[in-house]
């Protein structure tokens, strides 16, 4: 019993450290890839770490209109995303806390973080904050059905909403992603990933233009350590959603246990899969222009149709 619990705590600590360390790298990789395709040199791969370190050491300006919600938001956001990351298998098929919340809890924990982030945007009293909150809640709401339906397709296939069980079910059948339902669900979730992580063509993380920004508008008033926590949480959210895609659809190299040798091998696989997905995201970002806000629902409608088709094909081919 005690050994069990301490093993579980070790797993939690391991995964927390992994997610904390890996997520800025993914952000740096995405920026670097985009810069190289655009024939810029771009900031180095480790720039996000330097940014976070610098921000954490800086002072802050808190708006005089803000209440305790403004202060609580960075912490709530950070903690919810971090907990969501513990419900999902990263390099071992057994996620540390997947028993205590499956994919539904994961989606709703991310929603809890977003709820507070949007309140933090409104709390400042500036038009930008309200604008960002309004758009963020709108886009996430219309992305939700596509996300859930794709998730349902996966959960129905594995007979469980527990992501560890979904991953374990995938280990034996690495080529399952060739099934039409899996491919369609992957496509739907890929679009949702673009929308939820605020990538071009839905949002541009590198802009501060009033008319186009969404995420940046909400956090315009944050500075110093609070901004660092929010940026870090955004990176972690990106990692969580990308992990969901790579490990659910491409369970290559997932180790079934928590032994050190197996973990090293699967860490390599995990990094490779994340790299490939990052390339795909960067490719979408550099080949597209940002959409008008009211074209985004059409994109998300495509995602919804894709996941509905995924469901129908499950229905057709599984009998």
């Amino acid at each position, binding site marked *: 019993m005690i050994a069990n619990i301490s093993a579980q705590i070790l797993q939690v600590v391991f995964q927390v450290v992994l997610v904390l360390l890996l997520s800025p790298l993914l952000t740096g990789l995405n920026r670097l890839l985009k810069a190289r395709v655009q024939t810029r040199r771009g900031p180095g791969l480790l720039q996000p770490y330097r940014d976070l370190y610098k921000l954490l050491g800086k002072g802050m*300006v808190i708006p005089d209109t803000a209440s305790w919600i403004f202060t609580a938001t960075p912490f709530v956001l950070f903690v919810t995303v971090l907990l969501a990351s513990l419900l999902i298998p990263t390099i071992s098929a057994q996620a540390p806390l997947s028993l205590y919340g499956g994919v539904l809890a994961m989606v709703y924990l991310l929603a809890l973080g977003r709820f507070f982030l949007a309140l933090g945007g409104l709390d400042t009293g500036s038009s930008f904050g309200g604008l960002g909150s309004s758009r963020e809640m709108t886009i996430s709401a219309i992305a*939700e059905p596509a996300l859930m339906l794709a998730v349902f397709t996966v959960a129905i296939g594995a007979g469980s909403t527990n992501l560890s*069980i979904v991953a374990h079910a995938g280990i034996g059948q690495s080529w399952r992603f060739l099934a039409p339902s899996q491919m369609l669900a992957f496509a739907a979730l890929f679009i949702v990933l673009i929308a939820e992580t605020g990538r071009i063509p839905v949002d541009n993380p590198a802009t501060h233009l009033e008319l186009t920004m969404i995420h940046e508008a909400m956090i315009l008033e944050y500075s110093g350590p609070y901004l660092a926590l929010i940026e870090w949480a955004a990176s972690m959210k990106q990692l969580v959603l990308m992990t969901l895609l790579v490990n659910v659809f491409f369970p290559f190299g997932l180790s079934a246990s928590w032994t050190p040798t197996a973990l090293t091998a699967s860490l390599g696989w995990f990094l490779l899969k994340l790299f490939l997905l990052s390339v795909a995201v960067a490719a979408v970002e550099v080949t597209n222009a940002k959409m008008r806000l009211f074209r985004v629902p059409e994109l998300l409608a495509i995602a919804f149709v894709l996941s509905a088709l995924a469901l129908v094909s499950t229905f057709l081919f599984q009998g």
Partner: protein
Amino acid sequence: MAPILELFLAGLLLYAVAALAGLAAHLCKTTAAWITTSLCIASGLAAALELCASVGALICGAQFNWTLPSGLPFLQYSLRLDPLSAFFLLALSLLAICVAVYSIGYLRHGVAARRPGIFCCFFNLMLLALTLVFTAANVLFFLVAWELVVVTSYFLVITDHESEEARSGGMLYMLMSRGGTGMLYLGFLLLATAAGSMEFQAMHGAGGRLDPVLGAAAFLLLFFGFGVKAGIIPLHIWLPAAHPVAPSNVSALMSGIVIKTGIYGMARVFFDFYGDAPVWAGMLVLVAGVVAALLGVLYALMEHDLKRLLAYHSIENIGIILMGFGSALLFRSFGHPQLAALALVAGLFHTLNHGVFKCLLFLGAGSVLQGAKTRNMEEMGGLIRRMPWTAFYFLIGAVAISGLPPLNGFVSEWFTYQGLLAGFGATPTLTRIAFPIAGALLALTAALAAACFVKAFGITFLALPRSENAKQATEAPLSMTAGMAGLAIACVAFGLGATWIVPLFAPITQQTLGVQITGQLVAGNGFLLSAGTVQNGSVSPLVIALALIGLALVPLGLWLVLGRRNGARSKSVTGPTWDCGLPGLTAANEYTATAFSKPLRMIFSALFRPKREIQAEFDVSRYYPKAIHFESEIQPTFETHIYAPLQKGILALAERMRRIQTGSIHAYLAYIFVTLILLLIFGVRP
């Protein structure tokens, strides 16, 4: 054996005494504060007695049947506390206690304070009538209690009877309710003919003994009859009209429990009176649930009247409850009683949870209304500094109603999702597709609800006050915040302690479906909630909450360790919000509720058909506007397309009927004579 019947009757008696005392106070024309306070305490005590009775009945599995003859045929004053009744009585009593405490402070000000005696009289009578609705076990007695709820709540709604809005809202409520009751009479009479008795006990499974066509007719009549009260779309129009105009403690009970009488009726009919409903019935309920949930939240998003917004959310949550009931019916039709029990638990748990958080939100809105003196969110703002406790409790309610973990709304929505997910594998043919699609639309509903409550909380409580009244708002008195605190604690407790709440449903599923499922729903030494089996999915709100608190050490630690350089943390300063360099941010710069929901208004314009009008007055050229007038409205689709033609038709018919109203007493006597003859012929016909 717990003295459940005694507790129950004592509670009823106390309600009755408090109602009479209120009437006496009104007749003596006294408005003394101590009388009002003691009347509120009396209703709180009565509710506490009922709570003890219902919890006792659920835990000990005790039931009672208690009958008084009336001397009339068919009518018997029979009361029965079975598990289903006890569960709804529990929800009612819990809310009534908190609302009674809240009312102590609330009745000091506002419209209800002008005639507190008669208000308390109707308030206690309504609680009495609600208790009777949940426990009456004779069709006629049930309908009498049902009508008593309508009448008492009507008088409470029109407390502010000098306002035209309150009168018309109350009248609409009355009319719709009467229509619903009419359908209930017919439906119950059909069932009673099959049962051969007016007693609920004899009607168990009676729906199946009816001829299929009549059985279907009775099902539809009862579904829509109870649906009027529950507020399913398109029978919902009275809700957003009547809830906002009522005093807030009444709206809290109306939304928290009065509309749940419709849900109680449906649960009674679906799972007690119908042994096995046909597939289309389950499908109808599921679809009605999805429609109500989605349209309810979409209309709520467009509201900037805080109480109307909450009223539309009641429609949404009724939809979520009906999704649970609909899937339960479908599972039972396809022979999966275990899954049916899971879906029924989801629906019933959401009934309780919605009661708690909606009651909390309406009470919060009531405090805001007394503070800011308006229902219009566009004139609020910045109240979190002026009313910190109200804001805090409202936030808890907002998180809970948005279905976010680890509070209670998340738990019941999680069960609903699990029921819908199981539906794909458990039902044949095309019905299986309906379940995941309903699940996806539930996800959309929940996400839109979160957006709506970001708006409701953000615009009302955050940033700068938008009006002079909002600037001068002060915190509500202790009794009002205490009432809200009780409900907020319930929101947290029902979420974190869900594994201890779920076993309360065991006697209900045993009674209605003949299966015990709570053993499977609670696993892992009472820490886990599972979806039938742990293999299918599990969640633990308690562990999630503890993990959230524990993980808070991570960002704090990072900040403290990585941020410890040149004393930076002391450099946190307060400054003005960035206003593009203009002189000073004012409330006019803030996003408004209308602006917040604009993207969704555009995206769903096919439903809302928004109209807007902009008129600008110019000075020299059109680049120098002096004043701009902006108007934006959405089309109330159901009112214009269904109810307006209906009203026109009824009025035209009434115009023709007037011809037989001669005003002469001889004519009326002749009518009575002719009717009597016709009835006699009808009666003695072979």
